[in-house]
Each structure stands twice: as C-alpha cells, then as structure tokens.
C-alpha cells in the first residue's frame, strides 16, 4: 500500500491525537471525506447525521473541536473515518490518552461499534492487556515485522518466539536441548534442570526455548499423570491481593516466577526466603518455541 499515495487508499484512520481540523465544526470535520468524494449535499447531510448518531454525538454538529472533551473528540474522529465506509478502519493507539476508567468504558464501546458497523478494525496498541481483551486476532510486531498472527489464546498459550512470550504476560523461558523421552520430550537445560513436556514438533537434538507461565507452576503436585517439577530456591515473596508471586531461582541461576493462588491460611505463612522448593507443572503446560536467533 505504500506505493499508493495516502489519499487514494481504501481505508481510513483514527489518529492518535485525533487530528480534528480546528477551523471546521464537528459537522464540517465529519463531512470532509464526503465532500472530497463529491457526494451530493442532501446525501451528505443525511450521512453526517447518521454517523454522528452512531457515535452518540447527535446535536453537537456546530461545535468546534476545541469545545469538546477528549472522549467526544475521539468520537468525532471515529465518525469522520467511518462515514466513508472504508474496508478497514485503522486506529492508532486511540486509548493511550485516556485515563483508566474512561479507557475501559471506551474499549467496550469500540467493540460494540465494530460489531455494529461490521468492518475490520485494525487497532494499534502498546498495551498488551488491551490487545488481549479487545481482539479477535492479534498480530505481534517487532520493528515492522509480524512475529505472530493468531487469536489471543494462541498468542498467550502458544507464543511462537521468546519475544512474543515476553511481550504478553509474564513468562519463564528456559533454553535447552531437546531429547526424546519415554512419554514425550525432555528438554535438558544447562545446569541440570530437565523439563518434561508432552508437546511434539521439533527434531531430536534441536536447541529450543521452552516457556512456562507462572500460573502453570504450583507448589503442590496435583497432576497424577505425566508431569514434572523444578527445583528452585525461594528468593522473594510478593503478596498481590488474591495471589502470591513467588520469585525463585533454579540451580543454574535462572530466575523463575510462580503464581500461587492464595490459599487461606496454611501455605501462605510457611515460606522463608532461601527455602528450597519444588515447583510442579503438568506436562501439557510447557510450550516449545523457535530458538531465538543468535
């Protein structure tokens, strides 16, 4: 698309700072695209009214952008873009300027809007939580290249590379050599740790990255079937309300973070720093990834 000049592309953009034309009214801004496309006056007026109603801004046609709140300005930007019926709507970090509460309500509004309008919304954000909650599909990008394209679940549970795993949520990533075991694979990490996993998909002897999410690690062995454990030394305990974050270290010095759902009483008070612990996981939990390039 970069070969096509900007004014001839079949999609529209909602800019990060909205870029509303300060010398035009709301109606003027919204009808701009139609005026350029030489849509007739009557049809234009109707479509402007429809667009404003769609974003709940009916009645504010004559206002100037400087007289609107941030949220209202964003809606004008949305209306201005959507009125042209683009194939795709590009939203450039539209929520980054909003405070937390407003952001959450706007997220819901945008999702509803997208369902109503029915076109693809291409939403650019740095906020991975936002990406996870709002999207049907996520493309994780680094330096202009797409590293992985998939559903939120795909991205979270089966990240394709270290970068993607690091990017979404917290992860423990271990590197080692893959070996065929009796029931599945074993990844032998330098320093003696072994990871047992059920996943297939790499050749024997490959160097791989394995990712284990903190919530997969538990202090109790609950899985009776195929599972494994990590021997680690507890370094820090962080209490975060409903959970405990356990910061530990493996034999070879790699830091590990485990999430322990706070069991009332019992376990929470029985930890000491320096204590040796066993972190258990089900063999289905670890995920193999492409080894990060040299």
């Amino acid at each position, binding site marked *: 698309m970069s070969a096509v*000049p*900007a*004014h*001839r*592309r079949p999609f*529209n*953009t909602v*800019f*990060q*700072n909205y*870029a*509303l*034309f*300060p*010398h035009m009214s709301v109606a003027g801004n919204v009808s*701009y*695209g139609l005026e*350029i*496309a030489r849509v007739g006056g009557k049809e234009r007026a109707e479509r402007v009214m429809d667009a404003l109603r769609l974003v709940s801004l009916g009645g504010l046609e004559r206002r100037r952008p400087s007289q609107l709140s941030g949220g209202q300005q964003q809606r004008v930007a949305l209306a*201005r*873009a959507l009125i*042209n019926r683009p194939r795709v709507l590009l939203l450039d970090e539209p929520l980054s300027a909003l405070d937390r509460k407003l952001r959450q309500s706007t997220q819901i509004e945008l999702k509803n809007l997208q369902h109503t309008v029915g076109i693809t919304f291409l939403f650019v954000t740095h906020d991975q939580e936002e990406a996870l909650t709002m999207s049907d599909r996520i493309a994780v990008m680094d330096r202009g290249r797409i590293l992985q394209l998939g559903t939120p679940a795909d991205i979270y549970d089966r990240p394709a590379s270290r970068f993607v795993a690091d990017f979404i949520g917290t992860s423990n990533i271990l590197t080692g050599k893959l070996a065929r075991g009796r029931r599945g694979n074993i990844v032998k990490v330098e320093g003696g740790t072994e990871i047992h996993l059920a996943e297939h998909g790499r050749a024997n002897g490959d160097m791989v990255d394995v990712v284990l999410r903190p919530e997969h690690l538990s202090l109790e062995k609950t899985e009776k079937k195929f599972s494994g454990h990590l021997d680690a030394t507890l370094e820090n305990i962080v209490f975060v309300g409903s959970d405990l974050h356990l910061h530990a270290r493996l034999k070879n010095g790699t830091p590990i973070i485990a999430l322990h759902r706070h069991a009332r009483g019992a376990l929470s008070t029985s930890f000491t720093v320096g204590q040796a612990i066993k972190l258990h996981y089900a063999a289905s939990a670890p995920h193999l990834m492409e080894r990060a390039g040299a």
Partner: protein
Amino acid sequence: MRPEREPTVSNRRRISRGSAALNVYGASFLVFLYAPLVLIFVYSFNANPINMAIWSGFTLDWYRTLFGMQPAGAAFDAAFTENPDRIYQVVRNSLIVALSASAISTAIGTATALATARFQFFGKKLYQALLFLPMIMPDIVLGIALLIFFVGAGFKLSLLTIIIGHCTFLSCYVYVVVSARLASMDTALEKASADLGAGPFTTFRRITLPLIMPGVLGGFLLAFIISLDDVVITYFIAGVDTQTLPLFILAMLRRGIRPQINALAVLLIVFSFVVASAGLYFRSRRT
C-alpha cells in the same frame, strides 16, 4: 505554574525589594523606549515655529498645512511648510512600493516556507542558511550592491527597482514568519486530510492554507510596514524623480529642522503602529 519555596522573613523582604527594583527598572526601560516618540507627538501641537522645546500654545496647523489646508493661526510662513502636492506624491510612491513589494514577497516567502517545511532535499540546510543572508547583511551592503547591479545592467532607477530591491529581503522575512507558523502546525492534520481522500493540492487549499493564514497575513502586514519605512536600501536605488516618504523626510531633515516634520512624523508613526499592531496580532494568533 512554578512552585515557590516558602521564603523566610528576611528573604521575603529581599525578594520583594529585588522585584520592586526590577519593576522600576522595567518601567524606566519602557519610558526610555517611548519618551522620544511621545516627545515628537507633543511637539507636533506646539505653535512655536522657532523653538520646539518652548511651549507657546496648542495648534493643529502643522497637520493642516500637511494636507494643504489653510492654517488657522497667524504668522505661518511658507518657509516653514512643505509643498502638500509633493507630500502627496511621495506618500503615493511609498504606498505603491510597499503594497507591491509586500504582496509579491508574501507570495514568494510563503511558497518557500512550504517547500522547506514539507519537503526534504539535497543541500537543504545550506539552502536555508542562505535564505537568512539577505536579512543579516547590513542594508548599506545590499543597497550599493543593487545600485551597481541596476546601473550596470542598464536598468533605469525607478519605483520598479525599489520594489525589486525590497522584495529580496522582505521575501526572507515573510519566509521566517510563515515557517514558524508551519512548524507549529500539527502535521497530523494534513495526514488526516489525505487519509480522507484529499489530494495534495486540496489538502493545501482546505487545511494548510486556512491554518497558516494568520501567519501569512501577519507577515504581509509587517512586510508592508518594513517596506514603507525602509530608508537605507531605498536611498541608494531610488531614482531622482521617484522619492519615497522616508527619503522625503530625510531630505527635510537635511534642509533644517522644522516643526512640520513633527506632524508628518506623528502621522507616519501612528499609521505604522496601527498596521504593525494588526500584523503582530495576526502573526501570534492561534487559529
């Protein structure tokens, strides 16, 4: 705004004395700037035709004789006044030159500002530096350079040569003013316009131009006054029969100080200030 620490008692007194001193200094500075001009203003109403510094009564006659009207007071010697037709002639010349030069310069300066603000090209930094040169060079260097050029090229010195001469440095002045305006403009607006389907020229016409218009207008008005008031460059490249108002005043001053100069000066100052105020207002206005 700026968080202030709570000063101690003696500190507070020192700060307030310092502020008071600064205020006094600032006020005297303003007096220094405006007193000379106020003086001329006062003198222009002084009926004393011999010694301006001694007040001998209020009169509007100096103004009246400028416009060719009959003086109301007694003993008004023709030797004290200039030919009003001549005055009209030079004012007319000045206005023609100023209007033409500022109009042309505004167009050229704006085009140049757009080019440097929105395009990249080889040698741009050097080019931009060169654009400052006409404003940095002392007037006298420019004046004689143009004189040599026009005479050497066979141009007859006339209003046209004055206009051309003014356009050189006025274009650079407008360029600076409009550039500042373009720099403060949000480029996302132009991108948004393209995103909505407008081609480059439409974007310029409907978005860029309206938004920089105050700067363009301000530049035009200020260029107008600068041209109107120009002395040195005009001094060298004006023809014998194409005198502008400043040159006329220069000749008047050389002939000898007369009270009528005060009236002419006041009118010129008032006019300059009115137009310059409008220009400064537009130049700094946010759309």
